[in-house]
């Protein structure tokens, strides 16, 4: 545990000013440890919608774990797992280098370190599709499945970082290479809204991406 004041000091140092308020309030600080400045983007995945859900798929290729190990964790070039649109909200899921991060519950905080068998840091960003402005105050539950196996099933932490900004994330451990399904349940943002948002994102929305993970565990 670290003291609150120390955490807030870290927050102030780590965040662009525009994100400071959100960081203090939401209270999850992502400490970028590896690779973010040198990540590479992949082309956006195609997506399709049917009823209340949409899906997309992409092949992550075979070079996901190239790079030197640092602190027992290999850098993972940032790779897109999928992109979808929900009533003008752009939902983007990326995999990147696993990172430690700090979570804050109002009075205490705790550093969450990547597990030894971690594969990547899952990062989900919600943005206005037209303006690119980040949409906060939602929640995202992520489930990764492969057949009947479910290697990841957690609510993602609301999170901020210097280079990636506000997002929802957690470290994910996969049992190995293969094709996986990533399902995101995105809840409506809980906040007051300007009028342009009064009729959108009023109910939870499920989106499913299919991705191929070729990487070996990062550690």
């Amino acid at each position, binding site marked *: 545990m670290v003291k609150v004041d120390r955490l807030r000091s870290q927050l102030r140092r780590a965040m662009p000013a525009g994100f400071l308020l959100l960081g203090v*309030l939401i209270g999850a600080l992502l400490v970028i440890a590896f690779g973010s400045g040198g990540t590479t983007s992949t082309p956006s995945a195609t997506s399709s919608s049917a009823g209340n859900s949409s899906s997309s798929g992409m092949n992550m290729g075979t070079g996901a774990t190239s790079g030197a190990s640092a602190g027992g964790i290999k850098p993972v070039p940032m790779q897109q797992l999928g992109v979808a649109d929900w009533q003008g909200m752009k939902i983007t899921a990326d995999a990147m280098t696993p990172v430690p991060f700090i979570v804050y519950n109002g009075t205490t905080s705790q550093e969450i370190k990547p597990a030894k068998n971690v594969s990547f840091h899952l990062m989900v960003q919600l943005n206005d599709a037209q303006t690119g402005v980040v949409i906060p*105050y939602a929640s995202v539950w992520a489930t990764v499945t492969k057949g009947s196996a479910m290697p990841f099933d*957690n609510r993602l932490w609301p999170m901020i970082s210097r280079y990636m900004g506000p997002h929802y994330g957690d470290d994910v451990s996969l049992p190995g290479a293969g094709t996986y399904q990533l399902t995101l349940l995105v809840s409506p943002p809980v906040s007051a809204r300007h009028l342009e948002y009064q009729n959108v994102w009023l109910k939870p929305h499920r989106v499913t991406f299919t991705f191929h993970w070729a990487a070996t565990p990062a550690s």
Partner: protein
Amino acid sequence: MSGMPMLGRALASLTRRRFLLGAGAVAGAGAAVAAGVGIDRAVDTGGPAAAGGPGAAQVPSVPLGAQPAGLPARQHAWNAVLARDQYGNPVPPLYHRLLFFDVNGHPSAARARVLEAALRTLERAYPWAPAGLLFTVGWGQPYFADALHTSSPIPVATALSGFELPAIDDYHLCLHLASDDEPRLAAVETALARGAPLPGADGPLDVSSALRWRETRTGFIGTGLPAERQDAGGIPAGDPVPAAAPLFMGFKSSLTRNQATEDDVTIPGGPFAGGTTMHASYMRLSLDDWYGQLSEDERVARMYAPQVTLQQVTDDFTTDAESDPSLLGQAISRYGVIGHSQTSARARRAGRPIILRRDFNTTDSGQAGLHFVSLQRTIADFVTTRAAMNATSAQLQNPVITDTVNNGINSFIFVLKRGNYVVPTRAERSFPLVDD
């Protein structure tokens, strides 16, 4: 309950059929009721099934059978036969099974007889107790709306938070079985759904001509059982579930004053007077962070309230765990964490909860989960309780609390399915509202 005023005519015919079924003299009648008085019809005379409609089955003529004396009139009256712990809290049956069916063909008196005969066979085979067999029969909105084409006394289930998107069950019937004998429940299921013989049974059990089985959910609750079965998805490695815990999350749920009474949840009037309503949801548990990231004190804060200590839970929460909802504002503003019991307790009426939990854990599909069976006078009471648990407004007072972050147990349960049912009295349990 909705649609009650429209059910008056149906009630009249229902009462006549119950008379014919001979099920009117159950509770307090003393001697066993004579079998099948006046209804020994051999053929199904009603509806598409009788005409060989899709999915319909020939409905055999079965003896109705006698019913043991002294059974409670209310199906949901279980507490009187449950064991008590050292504080007087009822101890729920160890093993549970939810069987879901649709009507096979069209609702008819003949099909009602098949079901009633099977249920009476079970009542004769096993005592009404955890050592024997307890059960309730509940009927879903699709039974009333789609099979009977009448208004339903209960609404269709819906998502009950902004962070869930459950499948909504469309079953006609839910049979909740409970016993301390786990193999018995499996045997009863195969006897009912597939006609397998059941040792000790002296009457008909196969209901497949009247009901089409669709799904089974299984589970357990009781000291030691979750720890024994924690090798499941959603539970982190290292056997973190306490050996004595009755539920996967490590805490008790059936304290007597933390529950509505059976009287509280009984419908007071109308066609289903004496019955109750049931909500059955299926939740997946995700306890990696619960056990991997949180200390025991932090788990107490989220299960009860941040002002509650582990010692209080152990020493003081013997028959209640209200966790003082008047301190919720302090929890939000000072602690940045709110507890499940504290938020839920806001839904109490005259100091008492308005739902009666009959929930149990599961490892269905290899995943740790919770089958949340709840009884209440109206489904609205369940919705009220769940809304209190959501504590959505907390985020607007302190954004460090979101709908699933630092908010009770909301971030550890993922709702997969929801369904609503009405549980009639024992006398009305088989195909309610079916005319003779």
